């Protein structure tokens, strides 16, 4: 059997449960219309109008996202290295040290330029 089939089974169970809960939730609860209830929650203040999705957010999150992508991909490369370490031997060691060194240089740059500071 394909090893992913059991995962699909579990997925189906989990998804079924979630969908069922949502459906049940909308049926089981009361429904009393109230205009204020459907407004966005802003601690009792008149809500700030938004486009769907809430508009803009700080640039900082973009930076975090970019840094995440870069460093996460780096660990993607480390994983095959780690798994195949015994078969690749010293060659892999040297290459990985070079690789991590390179990453460190980029890392130092980001650090020094304040990319890791969260204001």
């Amino acid at each position, binding site marked *: 059997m394909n090893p992913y089939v059991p995962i699909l089974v*579990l997925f189906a169970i989990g998804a079924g449960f979630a969908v069922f809960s949502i459906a049940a939730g909308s049926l089981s609860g009361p429904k009393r219309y109230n205009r204020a209830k459907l407004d966005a929650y802003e601690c009792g203040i008149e809500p*700030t109008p938004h486009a769907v999705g809430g508009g803009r957010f700080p640039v900082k999150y973009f930076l975090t996202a970019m840094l995440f992508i870069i460093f996460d991909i780096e660990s993607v490369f480390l994983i095959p290295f*780690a798994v195949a370490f015994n078969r690749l031997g010293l060659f892999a060691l040297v290459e990985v040290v070079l690789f991590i060194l390179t990453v460190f240089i980029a890392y130092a740059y980001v650090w020094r330029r304040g990319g890791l500071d*969260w*204001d």
Partner: protein
Amino acid sequence: MSTALFAADGAADFSQDTWWLVVGKALAIFVFLVVTTLLLIWFERRVIGRMQQRPGPNRTGPFGLLQTLADGIKLALKEDIIPKNAHKAVFIAAPIIAATCCFIGFAIIPFGPSVSIAGHMTPLQLTDIPVAVIFVLAVASVGVYGILLAGWSSGSTYPLLGGLRSSAQIVSYEIAMGLSLIPVFLYAGSLSTSEIVYAQTHQWFIISAIFSFVVYVITMLGETNRLPFDLAEGEGELTGGFHTEYSSLKFALFFLAEYVNMVTVSALATTLFLGGWRAPWPISTINDGMFNTGWWPVLWFVIKLWMFLFFFVWVRGSLPRVRYDQFMRFGWKFLIPTSLLWIIGVAFIRAIPMTDITRRQLFLGIAVVGVIAIAIVWVIDATRSPEEDEQVGWELGEVDPFAGGHPVPPLPGQTAMLTRGARPKVAALTAAGDPDDEPLPEEDPRG
């Protein structure tokens, strides 16, 4: 899928699994998780109650064990609100994504060795794949979408910021988590959980990869948005965070997802560092490893799992919440570089057999390198960034409400304020800022 690359002695053998076995195991996992969650919530409230000198829930059922169930039923009977600003489809999909993904990760967790069920030898594990650990990480990442989309689709400020924070936090700590797993792979030479457990037959990786274990445990807290890292839903700042607008069973699903995730990361920690279902040392020697066969290992596994869950609760009860910038700084500036250095160190240790360097020389070398590296890092952080030494003047004018992208409406006549770390510092304002100097006009691009 694998012979040459991934085949090892310890790989679990699923060749005898039948469809009903698979469905049965999947259902068992599901039930296990739901029950564990119900218990965990009760457990948490009781333990924290104890730590705070109060009893905790003790009315519903024996010892209040059914309290969680009662809460769930209460939630089901609440009105299901969809705010009018929400993006409806996404708003509904988000909890489904979160709740579904949290279960899947458990598919590859081994509860024990092969046992005989109705005449079929089958491992106590739903399935195993060559990239099992990566699979868990991947599923966890998809789970982030649930949080992010929930925040985004609510059409409200707090959920949006909460969702962003939460996902920024999770992705930040995911790097350190990924790096902390690599020494394990280095030792085990595989990503398959059953093989990793097998590789811990003689020594658990908590010993050989102790630093990674520490890092993992820390990131585990960050990944699950638990105190002291529950910044995404810090009540004081963001009311409820990404799920502020959710109610009824949708909210319950997020709640469920959070606790199932706790269980999942704990189970992974057990599998990767604590020898999985293997019995602890003195017990494992009894009767030629009797306690490592049959159904016994499930017990060891559950015990180890609950140790971690207790740790979660214990930390929550003990530590205050950290500030967001402290949290990010800790993740980015400490966990990541030290993990990388640790990986290099482990790789060198693993490489000794291939060379004629003695272990002593190696440790000496690693120590020296480590000291130097730490010194460098300290220097980097201790010296101020060169940018800040020579900040140029920054004219304080009328605030541009969208300058940093914050959706904050300005008050009339409002001017910029100083905050710590906010960059364009007014310190040099009078020195360099020429009040008559107009900002550069938008040039005509055609010249």
